[in-house]
């Protein structure tokens, strides 16, 4: 059995940032396990620009952002095993993995960081009736085909879902010569960044149809078309609004799901809203010595935030390994209400080492709305924001002293919407 101080599962932006931070904090033996053939994770296929504005203060493409971390990892003595799939995390923090060089691997670790990322919601979960024709795939799969394999997955495209990957692919496919007929969005607003709507759709004259969905796919072998329809406020198709759109490809960009199969198998408690582990401010999960960060913990919209979160996990894991576990079991519990869908971390040590950033997402588009953090009726933080949207992750900083002074070990983040 191999022995490491820290095993990081996933070599994308989250895993690399966590490992590098742990190294910087003095952890000696670190191993990154990555299932793809290279480090970098999903960034390798995200060849568009827009990464790094917060973290590096300049605009990079996905591979460039990844490259900066890959280079740093290569300059350290962090071990990396690519093309390696983790099968199981056993009790006592033993990681079982397989690859085609070592065969089966058993690695004993003092601490583990989960950084497996997320996957796209597939067609089946959407329940779109129709044929089994080819030409229906997630936007991310299409992105891999176009950007890494160098093939066009279609010529006449309809995109369902206006998440950022869908918007980015609308532009990519158009630049590569395809005709993108439209982007349909079930909700009355887009979940993507405005910048992407402007530069990926408006620039190229691609219509964005809000409150609209695909209700049927057509074509026996290759997709030949889809039927779209407008939906009412309960997201049900409105009879009479059906329209047939000829296309050979339907790309789906309808949400991301954290990949927590390993986490669940390991018996770690999962937050039903984020679909990620419940963590404390060091990103430690319910299993001592196991930490989580990046999209496996909560789906982020900016890789810069992933990096920041992963550094917290790396530092937390380093402290745990140095046998300075930051106090557990004496937690302040954190929750969201009144328009706040979830808050990460869900727990904070009652005597934290420093100020704590609470990340959260809202359930709808809100304007001129106050964010309030309170405990037992006492307001700790309050700030008015001109706009809040489900597609943009927000955060507030709570002072360590304020947390220490709490009488009731409970914090709530909520919104106060202006009365009309």
């Amino acid at each position, binding site marked *: 059995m191999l022995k490491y101080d820290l095993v990081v599962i996933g070599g994308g932006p989250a895993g690399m940032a966590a490992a590098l931070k742990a190294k910087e904090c003095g952890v000696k033996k670190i191993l990154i396990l990555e299932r793809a053939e290279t480090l970098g994770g999903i960034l390798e296929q995200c060849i568009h620009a827009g990464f790094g504005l917060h973290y590096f203060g300049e605009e990079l493409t996905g591979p460039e952002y990844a*490259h900066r971390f890959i280079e740093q990892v290569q300059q350290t003595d962090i071990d990396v095993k690519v093309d390696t799939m983790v099968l199981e995390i056993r009790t006592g923090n033993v990681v079982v993995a397989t690859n085609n060089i070592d065969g089966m691997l058993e690695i004993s670790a003092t601490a583990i960081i989960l950084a497996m990322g997320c996957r796209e919601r597939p067609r089946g979960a959407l329940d779109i009736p129709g044929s089994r024709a080819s030409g229906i795939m997630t936007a991310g799969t299409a992105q891999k085909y176009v950007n890494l394999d160098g093939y066009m997955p279609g010529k006449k495209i309809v995109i369902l879902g206006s998440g950022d990957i869908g918007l980015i692919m609308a532009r990519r496919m158009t*630049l590569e010569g395809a005709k993108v007929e439209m982007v349909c969005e079930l909700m009355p607003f887009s979940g993507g960044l405005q910048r992407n709507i402007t530069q990926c759709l408006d620039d190229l004259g691609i219509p964005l149809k809000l409150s609209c969905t695909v209700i049927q796919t057509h074509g026996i072998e290759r997709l030949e078309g889809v039927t779209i329809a407008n939906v009412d406020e309960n997201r049900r198709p409105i009879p009479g609004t059906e329209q047939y759109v000829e296309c050979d490809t339907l790309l789906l960009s309808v949400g991301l799901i954290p990949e927590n199969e390993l986490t669940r198998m390991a018996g770690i408690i999962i937050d039903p809203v984020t679909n990620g582990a419940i963590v404390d401010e060091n990103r430690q999960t319910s299993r001592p010595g196991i930490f989580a960060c990046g999209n496996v913990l909560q789906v982020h919209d900016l890789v810069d935030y992933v990096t920041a979160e992963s550094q917290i996990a790396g530092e937390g894991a380093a402290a745990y390994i140095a046998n300075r576990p930051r106090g557990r079991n004496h937690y302040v519990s954190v929750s969201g209400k009144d328009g706040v869908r979830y808050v990460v971390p869900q727990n904070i040590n009652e005597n934290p080492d420093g100020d704590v950033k609470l990340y959260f997402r809202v359930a709808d588009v809100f304007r001129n709305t106050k964010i309030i953090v309170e405990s037992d009726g006492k307001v700790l933080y309050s700030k008015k924001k001109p*706009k809040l949207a489900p597609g943009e992750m927000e955060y507030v900083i709570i002072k360590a002293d304020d947390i220490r002074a709490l009488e009731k070990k409970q914090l709530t983040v909520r919104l106060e919407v202006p009365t009309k």
Partner: protein
Amino acid sequence: MTRDMICVSCPIGCALHVELDDAGKVVSVSGNTCKRGEKYAIDECTNPVRMLTSTIRVNGGVLPVVPVKTSVPIPKGKMFECMKAINNEVADAPIKLGDVLIANVCDTGADIIATNEV
């Protein structure tokens, strides 16, 4: 002449209203809540630029294509012309990140540079 647009400088997304004279010069910008909004409106109306990213075919590499970008943003109207130049180019492996694969693409002053290794 007037133009309406949504500012993308920050997540607030102010609805901007721009007045232009006959020569296409910006007379006034309204709807913005900060200075960046005004600059965005003027840039979009006078000289809109975009970063262009794509891939270039590679000979003899592990992957068949290498991702590329323009070294600086190019005029929005030149995107498809630059795509043609990118599509006609073939590069030989090995390619390093930052390698210039096309210099001064379509006279835009921007180079096409590799954004990954192949």
